[in-house]
């Protein structure tokens, strides 16, 4: 990983009238081009963290630096251009009456000239494979399609970072796969940094790095391998263990020689094959 793109230093945050702070002394960096997953039980502070990164709330303590700019009331609009967010409910973030109007919304806000807008609306929709839905209305789209339009709306602004706040949790498996696939392609092609807040551990397993939140604190940070070694500890934190990890464990118990815990089914199968097909 290269230089840090986002730097979060000693950040604490409490909502008004709330006794316990939502975030307590959080410090970590996010590198350019990485896929960072943030997991944690309901109410552990994940969404609050996302809101801070986008300047929707400001920390009472600590500083946040995004792409070299320290986040403050004065820089917030600059930072928002660099940090796009996709939220959980597909219906409650669709602003336009049609797909193209919705993608244009962010561009309009930033005062992009119309000619550039027309072009960017089309190219961003093409990138999420919604280029033929220009004049569709939101109630004719599936949840997954709406989320992809939301992504198009974000990338039209050419941000450096996309934050997905449980963006797939209301979708069916097909829609979920489509959305993640779309983001993955974008990340690879445009070198966008992705921060994905999720309850879906299969998805987190494919991240470059995972941060586990617990009761407003950064509980653990590490690669998926390191995190999923926590095993039963994860269940105690209200999380789950991804299927391939569970399966590797059971297979080892059944006496199948596996050298480590595998994070994807593909890895597991490949390992089974290479270690057992010698004869």
């Amino acid at each position, binding site marked *: 990983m290269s230089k840090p793109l986002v730097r979060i230093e000693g950040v604490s945050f409490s909502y008004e009238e709330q006794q316990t702070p939502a975030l307590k002394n959080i410090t970590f960096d996010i590198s350019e081009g990485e896929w960072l997953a943030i997991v944690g039980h309901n109410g552990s502070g994940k969404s609050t963290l996302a809101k801070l990164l986008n300047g929707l709330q400001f920390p009472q303590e600590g500083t946040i630096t995004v792409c070299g700019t320290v986040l403050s009331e004065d820089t917030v609009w600059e930072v928002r251009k660099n940090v796009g967010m996709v939220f959980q409910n597909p219906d409650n973030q669709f602003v336009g009456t049609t797909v193209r109007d919705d993608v244009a919304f962010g561009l309009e806000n930033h005062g992009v000239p*119309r000619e550039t807008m027309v072009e960017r609306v089309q190219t961003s929709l093409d990138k999420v494979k919604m280029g033929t839905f220009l004049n569709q209305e939101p109630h004719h789209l599936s949840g997954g399609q709406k989320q992809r339009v939301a992504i198009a709306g974000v990338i039209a602004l050419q941000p450096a970072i996309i934050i997905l706040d449980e963006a797939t949790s209301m979708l069916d498996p097909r829609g979920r796969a489509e959305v993640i696939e779309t983001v993955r392609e974008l990340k690879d092609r445009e070198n966008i940094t992705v921060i994905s807040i999720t309850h879906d551990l299969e998805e987190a397993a494919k991240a470059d790095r995972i941060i586990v939140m617990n009761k407003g604190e950064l509980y653990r940070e590490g690669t998926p391998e390191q995190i999923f070694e926590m095993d039963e500890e994860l269940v105690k934190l209200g999380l789950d263990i991804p299927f391939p990890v569970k399966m590797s464990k059971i297979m080892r118990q059944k006496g199948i020689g596996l050298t480590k815990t595998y994070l994807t089914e593909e890895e597991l199968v490949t390992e089974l094959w290479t270690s057992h097909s010698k004869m």
Partner: protein
Amino acid sequence: MMEKMIFGRYVPGDSLLHRMDPRSKLIMVFLFVIVVFIANNVPTYAVLAAYTFLMVGLSRIPLRFLYGGLKPVFLLVLFTFLLHIFMTKEGDIVFELGWLKIYEEGLRQGIFISLRFLLLILMTSLLTLTTTPIEITDGLETLLNPLKKFKFPVHELALMMSISLRFIPTLMQETDKIMKAQTARGVEYNSGPVKERIKAIVPLLIPLFISSFKRAEELAVAMEARGYKGGEGRTKYRQLTWGMADTSMILFLAAVTVLLFVLRG
């Protein structure tokens, strides 16, 4: 039901009226509503009627659509006609049957006033039949733009309208969903005494308002996250184009107006 709701009575098409700029259509209708009151004799009403039917023709809206959608309003026109006939007792009697007497002036007024009403309905309907609500919003926004100088929040109002149009279908689905859920819990919406029917509305309204508040909250956050900070410095994606047809149609109506003044008795 759904589709009907969103577009209102918009009938998709590619006629001259459909293709016109919503601004010119709005101006036309606005002028027409004033002009209608100029008419006061047979020639002027004839000109107005001819103009309106020409517009109906140009819209290429099938007449059955026009009739179907306006049935309840047509009844009002008919009622207006009858009322004027029976109420006005001036001039010669043109028809008499027992106690029923119809006077010349009554007939005249009945025809004129109900015709005027009918023409008003037709012209305003043509606007909504050939223009989507969002186009009307766009048109109004640009027409009202000069008011910005007086700190009138034209832009915010237009955005507000477009958001509300976008949410009408969503809220309808929501209403339907909640009604079904409460029906499954034993609520009956259309039976029982009136008091019960009124009470049955509460389990529908409260969830509907709660979910709307939640939507508003989330939508506002999403809008700000996408850089919305009020109307200043915003550019506009939706664009209106004023063409030859628009200018010609307005000039045509102006000519009709002049003609009306000439023919007026």
